[in-house]
């Protein structure tokens, strides 16, 4: 088994509370399924759109990340899967796709020193 990070982009943050609740139910159902199949290493968390960015040797601080809303990472999860192909298959069930968002699947890099 290898580990992967799912990065979610394009969350619909303008939804009404009722829509929001429905969406969260979908997410929960999806996580539950992943958990039962043993693919869930860490559910992770959703993230607020805005925060701060610290950059460079000068450690300059700016409000950020200032990307287009659809490009901002809106949350993450740690997944266990056999290989990249299986992890990609798993990502197809993500509810974010229903609202036009995307899931980026990135294998965890093992740094051998």
């Amino acid at each position, binding site marked *: 088994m290898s580990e992967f990070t799912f990065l979610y982009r394009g969350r619909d943050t303008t939804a009404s509370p009722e829509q929001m609740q429905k969406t*969260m139910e979908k*997410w*929960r159902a999806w996580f*539950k399924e992943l958990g039962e199949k043993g693919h869930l290493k860490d*559910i992770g968390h*959703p993230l607020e759109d805005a925060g701060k960015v610290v950059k460079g040797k000068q450690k300059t601080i700016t409000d950020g990340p200032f990307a287009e809303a659809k490009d901002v990472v809106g*949350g993450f999860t740690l997944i266990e899967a056999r290989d990249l192909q299986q992890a990609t298959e798993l990502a197809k069930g993500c509810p974010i796709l229903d609202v036009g968002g995307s899931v980026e699947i990135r294998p965890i890099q093992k740094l051998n020193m």
Partner: protein
Amino acid sequence: MVATLTRMFGVHNLALAEDIVQDAFCRALEVWRFRGVPENPSAWLMAVAKNRALDLLRRERTAVTYEPELARYLQSEWTLAPTLNELFAEDAIRDDQLRMMFSCCHPRLAEDAQVVLILNILCGFSIDEIAAAYLSSHAAIEKRITRAKKVLASSKKLFNITDTADHFSRLPAVHRALYILFNEGYHGASPEAAVRAELCHEAMRLAALLLQRPLSATPVTHALSALMCLDAARLPARLSGSGELLSLFEQDRSLWDRQLIADGLKLLELSAAGPELSEYHIEAAIASVHVMARSVEETDWGQIVSLYDQLMATRPSPVVALNRAIAIGQHSGPECALEEIRGIAKADHLVRYPFYHAALGEFELRGGRNEIAREHFANALTLARNPMERKFFKQRMDACGNSAQRGA
């Protein structure tokens, strides 16, 4: 509420769950003092407890160890809110209460301790209220509850109500605890009628919960519920206008609750499915004979005697034997009853039971031996457990005196 929160935090965090509920009540009192009690106070309390749980879960995400199967969903913001909503949904709360009910009936706890625990955790009675119901001291009840909670917490996991085998092996203990709880209300020591009726109602509410789930809605559960309904139907007639305890023979039968009788008879009918004949079946059948008779004279005492015979065969006890003897007295006259009472095995267990002496007194009185009867009632009086019983036995003593004078 405690049941739901314990499901969330795990049985080892019972105290935490209780703190949250306590906190919700305190907040409620503060707010209600200014704004008045809201339309639906219980929903309001639930909402406060839910928010409080949410705060706590966020703050102590790592500090608290949760009920294992839920932990992962409570620890992530992706799933925290919807999981909490599900836990606080109505049918989930019903299941939580069942789970807690079964957990309280832990085999390592004495029956009495199980009942006290149920009263405290599931019925929300305070230690003082329980002490009042048991005519016991605050300290004694507190000690008993603390000890029981320790046993409960050491069991690590709440009872799994979906495991069929475990469920059936523990169901009899749950029945027994509810039966004791009901009887505590019906015959219990507390002189306060309100406290006692509440205990009966709580037992009936919990039994009704059992009936809502197919797994626990067994014929025995139906029989137990039938028994409770049929007995509770007679509650309004058990006290006279001046607050005196009235025996079955003196009660105004028009005060009996017709709805409860109808419910009880229906449940008794449903309990007849399957081969099992529990003591609750028999006791409910006895109660049904009573409620269907329009008067003491019209009661089918022969049938009651034969039901007591069956009860003696299923669950023999000196008290059952005494009740059987009383029924025989109604059926075949006071001399037969006296003979039966004298013949009860293990009568030494009954010597401290006031109604044993009262029964002897009653039948001696009917046999016309007033002086002997009076002595028996005097013995009963010294054993009386509360003012109501005392009043009742005094009145029976007076009855002996009056008819003795009339005879002279």
